[in-house]
């Protein structure tokens, strides 16, 4: 099922997770679909890396590949390395581990929260039993001790009347409460890396604010790292340390959060930020200050739409929608250029390029 180039895992310079050249493709009746292609990013201890992109950009497939949770029935080809530094300080390649070793990590050292709190809890078990399950499995607690610990976890995620809630079923809880339960479940074994796949997308803004605050608090208290998958740039701005922007299965830009928002280098990132109405207002305000009142306001829009993965453009994937494209963009997919300041962008127009990531 899994094919990859072999090389021994090397130490990852104090990174908690170092993903190198990760690729995942699915074989379908219509052809091979490269959902994730040559994706490299890293997560520092205690920090949050955000993976940003639109639907179909490969964010979720990346996270499922890392967790080795892709359905076995899907004909997948996975390549690359995901070097994870575990609690003992050893670096292992998640993609190479035997299934048993992976099972010991999954839900234990690395946990995951999914987008839909409605569908990711089991409706026929009480929430206490669901939290206790991972504690019994990984921490070898007995039933009573695990349930007591489950109750403590519910208190940790600020669920009121935890003693009573522990015996309730998912349908008895609101959406925000269910997402808190999901977090309690993920946090139960004290993970060192939490993968959160659009954890607040299904929630209202006031509930989203509660959940994000909770996740931030837990991260400060435990020192865990987070891979935060989202399409919401507002959430990214406030809750990420590093950002990787994906487009059509590839990372097009990665940078520390402040640098990315202050000076996006890839035309796609620039477009994404310019699309936001609040950015448009800021631009309009400064234009008006300079040039006096302007005509009818228009939002910046990235024209066209994402190309089909079955017939990708010959060169840069973003070229058909890019306003800055030049003829050279059509000849080949640009490499991810690494800059001196640790930022990288996949665009032949980025001026500061010094060296290319192999």
């Amino acid at each position, binding site marked *: 099922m899994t094919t990859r180039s072999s090389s021994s895992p090397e130490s990852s310079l104090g990174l908690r997770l170092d993903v190198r050249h990760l690729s995942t493709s699915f074989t379908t009746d219509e052809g091979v679909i490269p959902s994730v292609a040559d994706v490299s990013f890293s997560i520092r201890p205690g920090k949050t890396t955000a993976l940003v992109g639109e639907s179909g950009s490969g964010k979720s497939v990346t996270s499922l590949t890392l967790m080795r949770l892709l359905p076995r029935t899907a004909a997948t080809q996975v390549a690359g390395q995901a070097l994870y530094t575990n609690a003992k300080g050893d670096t292992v390649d998640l993609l190479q581990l035997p299934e048993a070793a992976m099972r010991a990590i999954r839900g234990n050292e690395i946990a995951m929260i999914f987008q839909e709190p409605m569908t990711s809890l089991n409706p026929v078990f009480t929430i206490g039993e669901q939290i206790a399950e991972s504690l019994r499995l990984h921490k070898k607690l007995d039933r009573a001790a695990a349930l007591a610990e489950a109750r403590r976890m519910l208190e940790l995620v600020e669920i009121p009347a935890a003693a009573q809630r522990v015996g309730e079923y998912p349908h008895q809880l609101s959406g925000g409460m269910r997402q808190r339960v999901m977090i309690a479940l993920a946090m139960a074994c004290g993970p060192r890396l939490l993968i959160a796949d659009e954890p607040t997308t299904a929630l209202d803004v006031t509930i989203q*604010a509660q959940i994000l605050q909770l996740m931030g608090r837990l991260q400060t208290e435990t020192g865990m790292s987070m891979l935060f998958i989202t399409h919401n740039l507002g959430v990214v*701005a406030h809750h990420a340390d590093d950002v990787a922007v994906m487009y059509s299965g590839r990372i097009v830009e990665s940078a520390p959060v402040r640098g990315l928002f202050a000076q996006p280098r890839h035309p796609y990132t620039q477009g994404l930020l310019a699309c936001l109405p609040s950015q448009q207002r800021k631009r309009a305000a400064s234009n008006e200050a300079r040039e006096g009142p302007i005509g009818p306001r228009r939002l910046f829009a990235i024209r066209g739409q994402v190309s089909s993965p079955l017939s990708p453009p010959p060169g840069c994937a973003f070229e058909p929608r890019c306003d800055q494209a030049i003829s050279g963009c059509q000849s080949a997919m640009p490499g991810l250029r690494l800059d001196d300041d640790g930022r990288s962008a996949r665009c032949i127009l980025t001026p500061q390029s010094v060296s290319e990531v192999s």
Partner: protein
Amino acid sequence: MSKPLIEVKGLCKYFGATARPLRAVDDVSFSIQQGETLGLVGESGSGKSTIGRTLLRLLDATDGQVLYRGEDLGAASGKRMRTLRSKLQMIFQDPYASLNPKMRVRDILGEALKVHGLAPGKLARDKRVAELLTLVGLRAEHADRYPHEFSGGQRQRIGVARALAVEPEFIVADEPLSALDVSIQSQVVNLLCDLRDQLSLTMLFISHDLDVVEYLCDRVVVLYLGRVMEVAPTGALFAQPLHPYTQALLAASPKPDPLDSSIFTPLKGDIPSPINPPSGCVFRTRCAHALEACAQTVPPVQNLGNGRFKACLRDDLAL
């Protein structure tokens, strides 16, 4: 002040048993002037969509009135309503669910024309369909395709074209962007803006995305648990929200700026059940400023002048 195009007076919509109904919309009043875009914001369960549907009589109101040019839509006969629907149209949230997958675009748009006797004859109809597709930024040859052959953004354009086919005066746009990606959202926002200006449409724009509402709307109605909390011109509302709920809502939506370090305390708890809403002010259970009096009386919507209204007892708050 000219006569409003749409007037909503004391609108109520309850669902379920008469003894303990689900109060989706409770005593909501507002008006929409001709040419105006009114934003309707609130969290899930606040009654936004129910109001939109009741306005077009896709749902019948439990109580209250909806007036279109002074005519009570609740009293209109089925036949009259059908005629009126050519003036009142809707754009739906989910472009995947709101287009019939078995119909070609030509028939989806043509059906609306046929029902209202517009562009009679096949030739005239095909011409109008082509015109509509061009209007929303698609191509005339797209008429022969089925909905599944389009992306989400394109489908939403077809949904817009269908609403515009009958040359309406008033459009209810129910979260038309929430199923779309950011880069596509701005395309559709621009389309809606252009069409509104071109065809001088009046619009009720239902959304939970405050950023887009601020951009697109002239005035905003803020709802919570089926009741109006605040009404204000967009600029004033975003510059200085007066109701504690509006303040919390604005503070909770994260700004796409890492340097914005404004600190706020998120609202506690969840939206209460509309089957058993809190007594008095429905927001008091989550409000940081609630007093005992808030549990006693339902705060009336007070006119504060300059087009601003709020339903809150706490006039003493230095806001």
